[in-house]
């Protein structure tokens, strides 16, 4: 790969990492959500419209993206948080589908099916690494806080968390706000790097790939999604020389293998600390995130 190709690939890996952190923020509280893709789309198109219409400085655009994302996070949480896990995931997928319909049907603001051009001033390493560093810092500080422990508890077993006096709704609301803020920033960064956004920029494809990156990297530590996004973006590029058109097959196979044999992902602190022997005889740890829904079974 040439140097320019490397730089482009790494930049997209960085933006994907920001999206992955956003998915991680709600997964941390036991919510599987693709809503970040919708938040990112709204952030990006607002950024595009305002910078074209009002000549908004890029930095304000980024701040606005974060604020809008967080606000949408609150709204979304208010609507969907009471659903049980499978239905919640489906509702967020529905949001992504509706997002594309909105983009196509609001051509005055979004450019419709043709998409729109956006200024690329934020598309630099400094902004990207800055955003990632802030997101990573916030998550790492939260991990050791009361919120972090409460989020772990809610994810492992909501019923137990409630008996410990933790409000699961409240924790999941915070997860959605964090998720929205990161996704808003990621949307603006994605738009700046691409300098063009259309109805398919933020769609199911990005959603599935982001979710896959989170699980690949490890959904139990904030560094996991970043590692996952890097591996997931760079690996197909490296393999393109060897595999030609079949470059993504390896990532797919890898994903299935990881979820079966390393359910906690590549970054798994518990494994690093050799704590593994303690969990003998228990269900694999990746299982616990949604024990409640696993117990819901359907009888006709």
């Amino acid at each position, binding site marked *: 790969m040439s140097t320019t190709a490397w730089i482009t690939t790494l930049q997209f890996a960085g933006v994907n990492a920001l999206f992955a952190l956003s998915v991680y923020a709600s997964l941390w509280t036991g919510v599987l959500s693709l809503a970040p893709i919708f938040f990112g789309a709204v952030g990006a198109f607002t950024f595009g419209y305002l910078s074209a219409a009002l000549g908004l400085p890029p930095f304000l655009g980024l701040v606005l993206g974060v604020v809008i994302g967080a606000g949408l996070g609150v709204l979304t949480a208010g609507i969907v948080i009471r659903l049980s*896990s499978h239905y919640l995931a489906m509702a967020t997928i529905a949001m992504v589908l509706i997002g594309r319909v909105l983009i196509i049907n609001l051509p005055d603001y979004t450019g419709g099916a043709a998409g729109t051009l956006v200024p690329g001033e934020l598309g630099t390493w400094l902004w990207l690494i800055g955003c990632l560093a802030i997101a990573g810092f916030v998550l790492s500080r939260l991990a050791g806080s009361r919120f972090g422990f409460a989020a772990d508890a809610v994810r492992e077993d909501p019923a137990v968390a409630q008996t410990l006096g933790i409000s699961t709704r409240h924790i999941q609301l915070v997860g959605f706000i964090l998720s929205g803020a990161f996704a808003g920033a990621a949307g603006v960064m994605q738009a700046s790097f691409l300098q063009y956004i259309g109805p398919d920029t933020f769609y199911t494809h990005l959603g*599935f790939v982001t979710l896959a990156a989170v699980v690949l990297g490890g959904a139990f530590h904030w560094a996991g999604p970043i590692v996952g996004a890097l591996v997931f973006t760079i690996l197909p590029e490296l393999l393109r020389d060897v595999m030609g058109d079949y470059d*993504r097959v390896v990532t797919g196979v890898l994903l299935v293998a990881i979820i079966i044999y390393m359910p906690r992902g590549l970054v798994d602190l518990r494994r690093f600390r050799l704590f593994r022997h303690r969990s003998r005889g228990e269900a694999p740890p*990746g299982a616990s995130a949604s024990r409640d829904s696993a117990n819901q*079974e359907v*009888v006709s």
Partner: protein
Amino acid sequence: MGLLAQQLFNGLAVGSVYALFAIGFALILARMGILNVAHGTFATWGALSSFWLVVQGGLNFWVAAVLGVVFAGLLGVLAEVFAFGPLRKRNAGSFAPIIASIGIWIVLLNVAEAFIGPTTKSFPIDVVPSTPMEIGGIVMLPAHILIVATLIFVVTAVHLLLSRSRFGAAVRAVSVDSRSAAIVGVNPRWTLLVVAFMAAGIAGIAGLLSGLADNNVSFGLGEALLLKGFAAVVVGGYGDIRGAAAVGVTIGVLEVLSSQYISSDFRDAITFGILLLVLVTRPQGLFRERQLVRA
């Protein structure tokens, strides 16, 4: 009036493809507990493999169609053997199969694109029946009649199989509790393999018919079906395949009517708007099934 009747029939044909796809999707969701993102690629491969057999292999269309559907079914079996089965054995919870299905989706979509190329292909006109017929003032393509007939057959067959046969009882038992089912003499492994084959095979039929309906075969064929089928399953509820099928047909009719009388940009808005509304207000679907929830 003639236009309305014509568009109703067109909508019925479009919706029947969604309904067929939704049946397979609902089977996997209800009986195996998997939200299968890769289901659209099963449909794609059903269409692609038949297309390849007709064009490259020179086979008769009907033979190629049967082989293509069997191939799609085998892909479902492979997914069960290599991904979903091992996860179930490890008791990996309900998110893990979604992730595994994303992996399968990546593989099958990528191979499909490499296999057929990025452009859209068409069946040669002379191998597929294509002379339009006029019945009661409505022009019907043979493909459309075939689609509606297939839907009626598949819904009836699958419903009777699940509700009236010993095998159906075994499937229901396994989906409630596979260990208890094993105790009373059901082989859960085989049962789920057959369900996986059926579901993926039906997806293959849907993909093939979708390619036949507008004579377009492309690697992304199944993705559109996935979204509409997903909407049909969520709105209709996935416990009873008749609900999902009815909503699938309704979505098709609404789509065609709204692009005729409102605007073609608007048709997805209606479908997905209803989807979100139903999810938020009535998450078990319009035709909900009695649920037993263990604490």
